[in-house]
């Protein structure tokens, strides 16, 4: 049985369509990613799943419960980490966990949970004095304190430095390994690629694709890229005619060749044949970032992606 079933979900705010006819099912024990740009409708979508918003149309079941009608029961089996959710500034870590534990009939042992999340030493630290990474770990602790069967984590690593982010990623994998289904909302593609078993790509409110990260990448026409710098200008025609080569572009002295097959070998030998001296030759395989951009129909140069876009509030 699917843990989360969403069928034909629609939600609009006035004239703005936030979610447009989205359907998907989340299987037990997977990390299911919902990815999209800021403002694509991801948060509205999960807020409907959490029962915080009522959809205009469509059917949602979370562990067989209707989030709009069975809110109280849903709260017992779902742990949520909200974008923009916070705690009182002076509330201490230990107090927050003990307080949230009291809301649930069954739950985790607060001391052990803090230990697992590396927060034991911060037990007496006020929320306002936590670093970004510590606050996010506390947020995860509060999402898990009720021993949920499904955890919804919204933009969990936004604003974290790379080291703190890696720590949080490891935690999410541990959560999944303990049998909890994870619904992960993110606009940071390396995060989705690293963590998610399957990914739903949301673009302007619609479901653009649903597949494993590998499956989404494999859909690309040109999943490889060869980059090099030529010592002297050369005629791009020596490469464009080759088997497997898609596009050849030169920008600020660096040439980027996209294509398929044994691309590196094909490009390398053609350059040698024509006496082009190349330095810094690198082969890059496509990432989820590339797949995402191809799916949502915008070129990489059009808008900053990944980390540089993180500071925007959604």
């Amino acid at each position, binding site marked *: 049985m699917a843990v989360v079933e969403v069928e034909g979900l629609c939600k609009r705010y006035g004239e703005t369509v936030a979610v447009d006819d989205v359907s998907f099912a989340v299987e037990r024990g997977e990390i299911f990613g919902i990815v999209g740009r800021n403002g694509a409708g991801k948060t509205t979508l999960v807020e409907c799943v959490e029962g*915080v918003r009522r959809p205009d149309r469509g059917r949602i079941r979370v562990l067989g419960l209707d989030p709009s009608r069975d809110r109280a029961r849903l709260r017992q089996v779902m742990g*949520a980490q909200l974008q923009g959710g916070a*705690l*009182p500034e002076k*509330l201490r870590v230990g*107090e927050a966990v003990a307080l949230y534990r*009291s*809301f*649930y009939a069954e739950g985790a042992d607060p001391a052990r949970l803090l230990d697992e999340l590396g927060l034991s030493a911060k037990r007496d630290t006020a929320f306002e004095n936590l670093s970004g990474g510590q606050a996010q770990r506390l947020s995860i602790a509060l999402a898990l304190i009720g021993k949920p069967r499904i955890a919804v984590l919204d933009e969990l690593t936004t604003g974290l430095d790379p080291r703190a982010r890696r720590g949080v990623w490891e935690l999410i994998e541990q959560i999944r390994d303990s049998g909890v289904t994870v619904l992960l909302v993110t606009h940071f593609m390396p995060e989705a690629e690293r963590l998610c078993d399957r990914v739903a790509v949301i673009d302007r409110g619609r479901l653009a694709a649903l597949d494993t990260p590998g499956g989404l990448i494999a859909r690309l026409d040109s999943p490889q890229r060869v980059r090099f710098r030529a010592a002297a200008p050369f005629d791009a025609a020596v490469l464009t005619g080759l088997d497997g080569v898609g596009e050849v572009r030169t920008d600020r002295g660096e040439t980027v060749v996209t294509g398929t097959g044994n691309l590196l070998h094909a490009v390398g030998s053609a350059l040698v044949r024509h006496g082009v001296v190349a330095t810094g030759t690198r082969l890059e395989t496509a990432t989820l970032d590339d797949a995402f951009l191809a799916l949502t129909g915008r070129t990489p140069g059009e808008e900053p992606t990944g980390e540089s876009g993180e500071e925007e509030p959604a």
Partner: protein
Amino acid sequence: MTTYRPPARAWALLTWTEAKLVTRDIAGLVVPLFLPMLIMVMYGLGADGEGTERFRGVPAFDAYVVPMTLVMVVALIGMVNMPAVLAAYRGSGVLRRLEVTPAPPVMILVAQVLAALAQVLVGVVLALLVARLAFGMSMPRDPLPAIGVFCLATAAVYALGMLVAAIAPTTNAAVAIGLVLFFATMALGGGFGPRENLPDGLAALGEHLPYGAGLEALSATWTGVAPDLRHLAALAGAAVLAGAAAAKTFRWD
């Protein structure tokens, strides 16, 4: 499958936690606890302690300054401090975060009200102790009605405070609206000197706003006469009207 509700322990723990948070906000404690007391002490130092005819033989300090101080304590906490905390909770996402837990939203309001009441109790006891020990204040001639009147006044200013919390878009707005409301009702209600000095229309208005009505009714219990029904009705009316308006307009995010 029965629907699980958080146990009494959760309500108690949330209330206890909110009370602890109140004690950690030093700035929020100083104004409502010590400003009214400072004003009371200044009046007390100038008082002669003689009974006056106006208050049926009770000194004006006992029958007017002390009730005014007690109303000031509860009005500051109910109309300024509590709405500021709730507006901050909404602004920073504390209420949103609670929304996805099994805790019903009203739980945080109840906890906040109870924590603020504890603060009021501390302020009242401190003020009464200082008035008694330093200035020989006499206790109200009608102690039970005094308690009842104070509870009614508390309900009225808390309802107004909830309305402030409901309509204020930000924490700063809540403090601003709360303070304006506090000073306006206090000025019209006789907090800056006898209402007789005000134009008749304003004096009559102030007498029926929570500050003035609370002060008059509480003062009556000190002199041992029954509080005027108009004042009690004004307090009850403010509690019901503002409470209903707050319940209708309160936003959680």
